């Protein structure tokens, strides 16, 4: 009997939770705010679903209700992707070490 592909996806999901658990515990507390903004940015990978939804349908009528919801989701996710990564970049650029005294 074949294994349902759902089981494979479930395995990926469970193992990723464990990876997330260990990776996030190793994040230094001073970077918790950038952690939140970057997780926010990467969760916008949901745009993948939005793109499929928006461009689906070969009937030529691209402005079906289903497509429109896809397009709306694209805008929302795009705001998040650019906003999230750039604001993270901006924050991380501010974290500086103590300047070594030049003698």
């Amino acid at each position, binding site marked *: 009997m074949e294994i349902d592909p759902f089981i494979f996806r479930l395995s990926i999901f469970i193992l*990723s939770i464990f990876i997330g658990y260990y*990776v*996030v515990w190793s994040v230094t507390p001073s970077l918790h705010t950038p952690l939140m903004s970057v997780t926010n940015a990467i969760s916008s990978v*949901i745009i993948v679903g939005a793109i499929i939804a*928006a461009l*689906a349908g070969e009937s030529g009528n691209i402005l079906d209700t289903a497509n429109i919801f896809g397009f709306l989701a694209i805008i929302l996710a795009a*705001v998040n992707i650019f906003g999230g990564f750039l604001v993270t970049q901006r924050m991380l650029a501010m974290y500086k070490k103590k300047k070594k005294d030049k003698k």
Partner: protein
Amino acid sequence: MISANLLAVFYLISGVLFILALRGLSSPETSRQGNLFGIIGMVIAIGVTIVSVGNFSTGFFYLLILLIIGGSIGTFIAFKIPMTAMPELVAGFHSLVGLAAVFVAISAFLNPEAFKLGTPGNIKIASLIEMSLGAAIGAITFTGSIIAFLKLRGIMSGSPVTFKGQHYLNLILGIVAIALIFYLCSSQAASLFWNIIGISLLLGILLIIPIGGADMPVVISMLNSYSGWAAAGIGFTLENTALIITGALVGSSGAILSYIMCKGMNRSFFSVILGGFGGTDQISTAKNNERKPVKTGNADDAAFLMKNASSVIIVPGYGMAVAQAQHALREMVDALKKNGVKVSYAIHPVAGRMPGHMNVLLAEANVPYDEVFELEEINNDFANCDVAYVIGANDVTNPVAKSDPQSPIYGMPILDVEKSKSVLFVKRSLSPGYAGIDNDLFYRDNTLMLFSDAKKMTEEIVKGL
């Protein structure tokens, strides 16, 4: 067109890049590279999706325009937002992820053929469960984050909104939503799907309104976690590895942050979620109402004390963010260092309105991150320090947390500010902090209260140095 297998490999690669993006945050040096990995992962995911759909007609044109519009808005916000507004920005961004998840789920429900999930009215049961869960969690994230945003922004009062039977109502709504998902699987009726979304939107509002302002670090982390689970739900529907991996990462990340924040307040996750803290603690406020004598000082006293100290520890809190005092503070520290005073910063895990809030503000003011310490790292140093400068923090320094089992904050880890030789406490008035309890520290002999706005006082001290 590219083959389904190749497509899956690319999604896997972007998933791995996202893991590396989080991994980079283990230290500030590797973090910028990590962020770059994240961006590359995102570009790969979007790129291969567009190629795989292979529709380069009108729709593609719209897609590009929307990407540019959304991207410009995002870029504009990212560069314009002041660092003190980070908590509400993150809350706002969470609401967008939630809404996007809802929209994608709706689209998949209306046009399941596009995602190979069956036909309208005959969608695979597993997919129905996944997409309605994704939509429901997305909807809760959406409205919940909006309430959090309004509270953080000050548009809505930060005090908890509670009414009788609130928790039962939430419980019933939750049960109804789950029951509707079951019915949806048997009947496939669109009206049920809309109802699930509607109830979840309402539930999102009801879940967040009873939670007060200073519990926001937990709420934001929790909503962060929800947005991840919503993405994972959609990932299962779309059978997309990148989304499943990302959803799991974000979900567990938010959950861990919520846990850290709850531990920082010594409160159980459930007591935070059930809310109402801070608004109803009448007993302890009344008990401490008699006015005890306090010592007050002015900027010159403070300047004199600190100039002659050999070590000073700064304890920033939410009040510093409100007064935007971080730059003035850095100037003060620079002046002190010129006088040969050793200065470090002590950050309580729940200082501010989101995890790491104070660290970002200090970084913005060019404070080197190796002068900033967490509670466990620095708490023993208070005993050997001459002056503790408390700016905008209150409850996290209250010694009552260690001594009075009756106190609502009893058991909360606090910064041992009272152990330093003298304490300078910048505060606008003697009013109690968020927990609604008096701070014992105000009445100690070694405490000098500086009644003023945090920024103004710090600037005056700079002049005095």
